[in-house]
């Protein structure tokens, strides 16, 4: 159990591409839960092709939302991603999640910790508003301590200003 959640976290850390396609789920698409037919027949359980897998959550649903400089307001794209996350979490009720809030390096350490908390909480509050049980969601802020992109340019900063929903505690085996 503990090992499994460790592996899930690792996957989340390695999966950075999901945010590049935030429009995959429009508000209308979420009604069908994002379980699409084209992949039927080639589903490998637990892999990204399995809609009930954490890998699918990370890569297809999208595990993160991005923010503007010094902002914690959800963008339309961010809300669409969170709509998809909410549907997934409602369908896969055995998972809990920790939402990690992050900031780019342009800021002082303490302020960025508080800013990351705002961002993580914005994502949490939205998921709860979409019906996800509050008790399944925890938040943590890493401030500027865990950038995924290392250049000192807006292209990197934009990806570092994020709230990432990290699945934990999948109860199904």
């Amino acid at each position, binding site marked *: 159990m503990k090992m499994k959640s460790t592996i899930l976290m690792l996957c989340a850390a390695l999966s950075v591409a999901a945010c590049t396609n935030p429009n995959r789920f429009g508000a209308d698409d979420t009604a069908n839960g994002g379980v699409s037919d084209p992949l039927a027949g080639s589903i490998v359980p637990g892999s990204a092709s399995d809609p009930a897998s954490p890998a699918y959550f990370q890569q297809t649903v999208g595990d993160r939302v991005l923010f503007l400089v010094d902002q914690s307001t959800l963008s339309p794209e961010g809300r669409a991603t969170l709509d998809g996350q909410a549907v997934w979490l409602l369908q896969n009720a055995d998972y809990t999640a920790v939402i990690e809030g992050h900031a780019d390096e342009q800021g*002082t*350490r*303490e302020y960025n910790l508080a800013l990351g908390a705002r961002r993580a909480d*914005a994502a949490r509050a939205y998921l709860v508003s979409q019906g996800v049980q509050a008790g399944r969601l925890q938040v943590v802020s890493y401030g500027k*301590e865990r*950038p995924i992109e290392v*250049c*000192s340019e807006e292209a990197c900063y934009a990806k570092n200003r994020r709230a990432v929903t990290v699945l934990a505690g999948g109860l199904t085996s």
Partner: protein
Amino acid sequence: MMVRVLLMVLAVVWTAPLTAQDGPLRIEITEGVIEPLPVAVPNLVPETAGSAEMGQQLARVIAADLAGTGLFREVPSSSFISQVSDFNSPVLYADWKAINVQALVTGAVNVQGNQVTVKFRLYDVFSGAEMGDGLQFAGTTDAWRRIAHKVADAVYSRITGETGYFDSRVVYVSETGPKDNRRKRLAIMDYDGANVQYLTGSESIVLAPRFSANGDRVLYTSYETGFPRIYVLDVGSVQRRVLESQQGTMSFAPRFAPNGQTVVYSLSQGANTDIYAMDIASGGTKRLTSAPSIETAPSFSPDGSQIVFESDRSGSQQLYVMPAGGGEARRISFGEGRYGTPVWSPRGDLIAFTKQSQGRFHIGVMRLDGSEERLLSASFLDEGPTWSPNGRVIMFARETQGAAGRSTLYSVDITGRNLRPVRTPEGGSDPSWGPLQR
């Protein structure tokens, strides 16, 4: 684990100067020294056969301390005309005057087993007189650097009229690895980067250690539970315990009150971050701010009556002062840009801060009403000032730009002069300068 260093300071008067001094040697720091004062520190005279090497090492550290302030310039031994081979012989002032030495530090060292005794005298060459009395320090040989720092502190103090700061330590975060896989652990060192010891492992993120006023404990933030929590660590025993662990919250940015019994810190609940105070003994807490904005980075005034902190209640990060028990806060920063990480000076008259303006970061100081703002540094990312015990120097961290970015500790005089890196074995950030040791 940490060696408890015992140093005895013996004020011994061998020969009190009998002559009144004419225009004594003096550096007025507040005027901002442009031309450093030439000082010579010959190797200390060995009183036993095994003391010669120690005499050289002590002289090197004393000279480095003095020159490191930017107020002194060391005159190299290669230009000496006379050598000091007997601590008690009269000083040949003409020989030192000829090479333009203005302050001369002589000493003798006596090593017996693991005990070392150091005597020194300070001479004002141009007045042709000794400054103050001879002093003797005794300690263990493994504490020899502390003895050198104590000699340098005495010299600094006699010439500037200010308390010294060399016999002090700094707790900081030691950093290795690239930006996207940075490893951090707490470390403690002498003010000059020597004698680094690590206080924690690097398994979890550790942030912003803060010394207590007497240097016995360190507060810091660690992610070892998976969430940021405040810990207190005893410097002597390296024992630590969590101070704040309220479920569903995050706590960070702790700082001791001057009395060492109260801690102020930030607590995040949901989207909101406010400042709280905790009585360490009872664990009882009190909320000091209750605004929907971010309130963090609290720092006490030296008398413990007020707290300076940062808040974005106006729409951007600015500095505020409130009573130590909470209550109405007044804004003190009004310049262009954002202000954070305020730290009250030990003298009580200045606030050091980090300023962000037009894409650059600065360390600066201002008066308590925000006037006389003075920026001491500028770079891609300067952050997190801490005051030397005498309030004359500020240490901070500078992170360089880009993928290979690395964080290094720097110090700068509050006049803005003498910006210099502090050499540490690894990268460094979040320094907290402790008190002058006894």
